[in-house]
């Protein structure tokens, strides 16, 4: 028999645990819908996170802009040289790009670009240990939607799994719950790579006849209807036997997930963007 003085503690504990179990079971049935509580808590927590992040950025900016200037001159010279080289490269390819756009328009082919994106700052990571997610400072008001693809110029980062008013949660491709439809760039073998919770992606149960080798480049295939086709995904780092018939293939993402500061969130995929432009629209002039 529980003494009267201890009963409130047990009652409160059991009530709290029942509440959490009900919350879990509610989401199990509605996995596609964002949890309403997540949205509220996100809107409540993120302003504080943004404030702290901006303060850190400010201090960092003062330090790197005015104090930590060792090597800046050399870096500046290198960047100028690379800038000149890239500008010459762009100029030489501009005519080829214009011709490709003209041909695409005349053939009625869909725009092969990525679509419309919005740049977002990474302001935090998940405070838990069982998932790999980021918090960004762009949300519903900026056009971010659930399951939107997130990327950097280096490659795919992940997808949006939670959207608040002006913030969003991004699930990294290395998260154990993540899976990306991939394509081997050279052999065109299609596969699905899953996150492992660590730094790598993993492909299970590939046919032993598959010609996958270490160093092969992986790109997105677009079949998951989330990530646009053709974007860099990962590079194969190991191919080990698994039993007699299968192999385990591991790949390292092209993006360094530990050093993300800014990402691009896809708010309007290329097909949607192309629908707004009639096929006979004139090409933009320079």
């Amino acid at each position: 028999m529980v003494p009267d003085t201890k009963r409130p503690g047990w009652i409160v504990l059991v009530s709290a645990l029942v509440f959490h179990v009900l919350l879990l079971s509610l989401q199990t049935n509605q996995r596609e819908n964002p949890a309403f509580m997540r949205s509220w808590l996100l809107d409540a927590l993120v302003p504080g996170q943004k404030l702290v992040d901006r303060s850190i950025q400010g201090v960092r900016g003062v330090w790197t802009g005015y104090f930590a200037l060792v090597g800046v001159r050399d870096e500046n010279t290198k960047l100028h040289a690379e800038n000149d080289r890239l500008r010459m490269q762009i100029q030489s390819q501009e005519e080829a790009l214009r011709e490709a756009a003209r041909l695409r328009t005349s053939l009625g082919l869909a725009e092969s670009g990525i679509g419309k994106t919005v740049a977002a700052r990474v302001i935090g990571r998940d405070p838990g240990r069982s998932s790999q997610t980021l918090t960004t400072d762009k949300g519903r008001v900026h056009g971010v939607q659930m399951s939107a693809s997130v990327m950097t110029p280096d490659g795919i980062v992940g997808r949006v799994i939670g959207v608040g008013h002006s913030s969003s949660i991004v699930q990294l491709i290395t998260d154990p719950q993540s899976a990306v439809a991939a394509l081997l760039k050279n052999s065109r073998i299609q596969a699905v790579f899953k996150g492992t919770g660590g730094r790598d992606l993993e492909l299970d149960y590939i046919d032993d006849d598959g010609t996958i080798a270490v160093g092969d480049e992986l790109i997105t295939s677009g079949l998951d209807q989330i990530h646009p086709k053709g974007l860099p995904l990962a590079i194969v780092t190991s191919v080990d036997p698994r039993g007699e018939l299968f192999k385990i293939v591991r790949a390292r993402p092209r993006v360094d997930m530990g050093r993300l500061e800014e990402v691009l969130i896809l708010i309007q995929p290329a097909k949607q963007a192309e629908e707004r432009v009639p096929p006979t629209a004139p090409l933009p002039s320079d």
Partner: protein
Amino acid sequence: MAKIIRRLAFAAISVFTLVLIVVVQGILKHRFLVFSVFDLPLIYCVYYGFTRNRPVPSVFVGSFLGLMQDSLSGVAMGTNGFSKALICYAAASTSLKFNVDQPITRAAGLFLFTLADSLLVTILTMTTGALVRPLYGSRFVDLMLLEIFNTLLGLLMFGIRDRYRNAT
């Protein structure tokens, strides 16, 4: 009236402290990857339970911390809430029965509660149908590292608190 204002102010400061802990954990983990081995909300749960000795408020503190953790991560809402509520209550109940002022008791408590939290979160994540990394191999090593680092950081926090109390 003054009493009500004092209570409201205390409640506001408490909520602000809890929010700050979760926000700081997220930002520190982003800026310094080494913080991925610490779990500040869990350390605070054990700290609160051991120092306040009040099981009922501990349940609310643990639930709130856990739900905030869930909202900023990819797990289902309620996963960390369930675990932290239980652990915070267990810590408070333990402090009523045992002497938790000794470093060895605190270390043992932190170690066991960190292990319990990891197991609970893994089990709850599995029951919602989500995939988890198996708890062996490299994951087991990660778990042990988490236990040790969490325990050390928790002991440091307790030490700072004891020093502050002695000074005042």
